[in-house]
């Protein structure tokens, strides 16, 4: 994955780290965020920093390897004993400083454990649970939430449009005698102010609607991710409007 911006890079890196169960994700992201900040302070563009950092997949591969070696060098990791013994001359210190040729084995081992972990546990039970949730909760919660939001959007449009219309009528009634078309008890100036007030209310409703739509999309994403997590072990979508550093 090739990125051009800091946000793109950090988000991509975080998702990849989480999906591969790399430890100390927060610490790693701090390192890279600081790298970007230092790069910018030194006059480099985000795209330049991204290009020099290289492919996220390549970085992730390294972290997976490091994690696996770390596990392998702890005493309780059985099965790696034979490998550790082969580095005879450096055996005293070699446990931590693994020599390069051993790497491929560990990498495969790490990938195996990573891909097996999510499938452990009762998959059938999870599927039944998901179906129950879908049928009994999401089936009514999502449509009712959607109808509330659509209602909000409708109200918003009503306020904005009628506010503008009243404003225009107020303006026109200065110049044209509209008494034949519009029945109002208002003087023109109060019509103008009424129009402005209604538009302003409409404006506030626009902000509320946008927040509601964003929230709704995030709820949907959460539901999809819940399914993905239970079925395959990791999230597949990133929430919108989320800061990359939380």
């Amino acid at each position, binding site marked *: 994955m090739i990125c051009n911006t800091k946000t793109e890079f950090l988000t991509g890196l975080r998702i990849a780290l989480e999906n591969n169960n790399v430890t100390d994700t927060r610490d790693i992201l*701090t*390192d*890279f965020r*600081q790298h970007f900040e230092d790069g910018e302070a*030194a006059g480099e563009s985000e795209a330049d920093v991204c290009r020099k*950092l*290289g492919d996220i997949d390549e970085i992730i591969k390294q*972290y997976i390897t490091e994690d696996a070696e770390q596990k392998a060098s702890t005493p309780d990791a059985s099965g790696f004993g034979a490998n550790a013994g082969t580095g005879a001359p450096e055996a005293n210190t070699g446990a931590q400083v693994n020599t390069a040729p051993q*790497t491929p084995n560990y990498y495969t081992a790490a990938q195996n454990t990573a891909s097996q972990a999510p499938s452990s546990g009762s998959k059938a039970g999870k599927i039944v649970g998901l179906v129950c949730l879908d049928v009994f909760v999401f089936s009514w919660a999502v449509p009712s939430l959607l109808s509330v939001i659509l209602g909000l959007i409708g109200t918003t449009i009503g306020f904005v449009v009628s506010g503008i219309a009243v404003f225009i009528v107020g303006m026109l009634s200065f110049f044209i005698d509209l008494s034949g078309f519009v029945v109002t008890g208002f003087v023109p100036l109060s019509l103008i102010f009424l129009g402005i007030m209604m538009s302003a209310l409409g404006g506030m409703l626009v902000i509320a609607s946008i927040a509601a739509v964003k929230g709704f999309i995030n709820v949907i994403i959460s539901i999809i991710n819940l399914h993905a997590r239970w079925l395959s072990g990791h999230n597949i979508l990133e929430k919108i409007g989320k800061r990359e550093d939380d």
Partner: protein
Amino acid sequence: MQSQLKRGTLELCVLSILCRGDRYGYELVNIISGCMHITEGTIYPLMKRLKDAGNIDSYIVESQEGPPRKYYNITDSGRAIQKEQEDEWRNFSTAINKILDGEEQL
């Protein structure tokens, strides 16, 4: 350069630089990339490995301008490993150079 060879020697590079003083990530990466072509992002996984193994450590320095900054420093065991790897590398490169220069003894 072959990645395996580079990986082993990069570790020695990081340890050697930190032996001479504490550095923050960007600084360290730039020192190395100033000397050879590297994929900069791969230095950080290496740092994590060295840290997990206890050969280097990190600490946070609060700064007036901007967010706090993370510095890396070498530990005693890191120094010992640096010494060992430096000797190993010098012997190895001397041997290789001899062969490359055709000075090997028959």
